[in-house]
């Protein structure tokens, strides 16, 4: 159907976007790869272009690397568990016939639109502050000793903050998926006397499987890059240094560019493993 002229016009129309993205991807990534094999410490004026895999060896053999991997895994895993579980429950709740559904939905979704630096600071100061935080007031009200969240349970605190930010996303997507469920099937199951839990397990959950997969994959991509929330709360101390944050510190704070770049390449590889699965899930939909 497409003529030759329209095909070449189409190529021309795609060219700017493709060229820009290609440049954006290739140029800096090539530089990072190049630096990762160099001893490059600009503050000390050191630049040795080829030291083999030394940076990789040093980066992966340091204790902070494994701590960072561990912190990253716990953080991403916990946030995923919380947001997906609560997201399913909330989506089911919002799907019920409730009064003022539109308003409730707005209230639930709002945290997603709060910029990361604001949500981190609001939680740190307004909610979790050991003296003036709302949580401390609540603790005191019930006669418990207030708790210094960000020093005594830093990882949990950040998990809480980020879960609050991403729960709306999971809820919204799962709600969209639930609403596309065929109501007749559920009614038929109800008539046949299937109890709610069974209806959930055998009809709703399988229907949601795809949406859940997508939520998990997309959130993982974004969560691997959590930055601002750590930057304004703990600055990576007390076991909250994720891989992203560790690389940031090596590259910009201590300006050990070679070492940091090796870490950056490792982060790219890890993210790509997740990305492959996400692309499969999205790609399947593209034919339909």
């Amino acid at each position, binding site marked *: 159907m497409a003529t030759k002229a329209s095909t070449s016009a189409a190529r021309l129309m795609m060219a700017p976007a493709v060229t820009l993205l290609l440049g954006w991807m290739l140029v800096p990534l090539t530089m990072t790869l190049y630096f990762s094999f160099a001893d490059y410490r600009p503050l000390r004026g050191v630049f040795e272009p080829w030291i083999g895999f030394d940076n990789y060896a040093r980066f992966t053999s340091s204790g902070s690397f494994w701590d960072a991997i561990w912190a990253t895994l716990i953080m991403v895993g916990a946030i995923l568990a919380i947001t997906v579980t609560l997201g399913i429950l909330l989506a089911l709740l919002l799907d019920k016939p409730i009064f003022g559904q539109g308003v409730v939905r707005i209230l639930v979704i709002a945290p997603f639109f709060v910029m990361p630096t604001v949500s981190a600071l609001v939680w740190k100061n307004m909610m979790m502050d050991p003296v003036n935080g709302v949580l401390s007031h609540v603790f005191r009200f019930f006669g418990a000793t207030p708790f210094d969240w960000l020093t005594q349970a830093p990882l949990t605190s950040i998990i809480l903050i980020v879960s609050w930010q991403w729960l709306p996303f999971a809820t919204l*997507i799962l709600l969209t998926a639930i609403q596309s469920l065929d109501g007749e099937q559920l009614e038929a199951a109800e008539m046949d006397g299937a109890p709610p839990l069974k209806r959930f397990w055998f009809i709703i959950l399988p229907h949601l499987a795809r949406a859940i997969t997508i939520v998990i994959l997309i959130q993982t991509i974004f969560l691997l890059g959590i930055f601002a929330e750590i930057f304004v709360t703990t600055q990576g101390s007390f076991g909250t240094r994720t891989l992203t944050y560790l690389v940031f510190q090596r590259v910009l704070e201590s300006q050990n560019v070679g070492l940091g770049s090796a870490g950056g390449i490792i982060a790219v590889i890890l993210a790509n493993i997740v990305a492959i699965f996400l692309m499969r899930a999205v790609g399947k939909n593209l034919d339909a």
Partner: protein
Amino acid sequence: MARAASTRSRIGWTALAWGIGFLMFFPILWTVLTSFKTEAEAIAAPPSFLFFDWTLENYGIVQERSDYMRYLWNSVIIAGGSTLLGIIVAVPAAWAMAFVPGRFTKDILMWMLSTKMLPAVGVLYPIYLICIQLGVLDNRAALIIILMLINLPIIVWMLYTYFKEIPGEILEAARMDGATLKSEILYVLTPMAIPGIASTVLLNFILAWNEAFWTLNLTSVDAAPLTAFIASYSSPEGLFFAKLSAASTMAIAPILILGWFSQKQLVRGLTFGAVK
């Protein structure tokens, strides 16, 4: 009987849903309320929920002391500029992929998606270095371009899924009626494409407004948007709770309002059309 039970259960679900909605919204509500308190009232124990002397002084102080308007303006310029630029680059591309699909269209789309998954920290230093070399560290134009590039895959994808829904038969019908390519684009396609483009603009403006990796790492004073401005409050100095709240409220209010209009687009845009 059954009807009574269902009304009762509806009230029950409603109460539960409102309770949870309130809890989710509470940190935002509390921040907004605190922004209208005096610093002394902001740290009063036990805190007062609504019955305090409402004041606007914090907003004045924040503006006066930190030149809030400049950061706001930077946010508007950076988010708006990168969205506009992204649309200009992406519309032709998405258009071509939707209406003249070739053998590699799908591969190109998937590849674009894959660039979005590149962790920013992996290219942090090269971008930082390039900005220094070009003398554009802490520069709005540089941030506009960078944010445009990181959001470009989402823009192309969103537009593509919208354009894809425009039925091709309409084009053929217009052609049969003797429409030229120009009038075809102007009178047939554009009106049908506008809602999709508008949704894309909305979502990407929000994403760019809230972006907090590049804006934190590549700005200091001149080009710093609200994300960086708020981060400067991370080390408390004296009485600052009410002022922090006022600054936060101002930073999130415009985007909360826009966000409420964009719930549907959010799902489509951030799942790359996989969930609609």
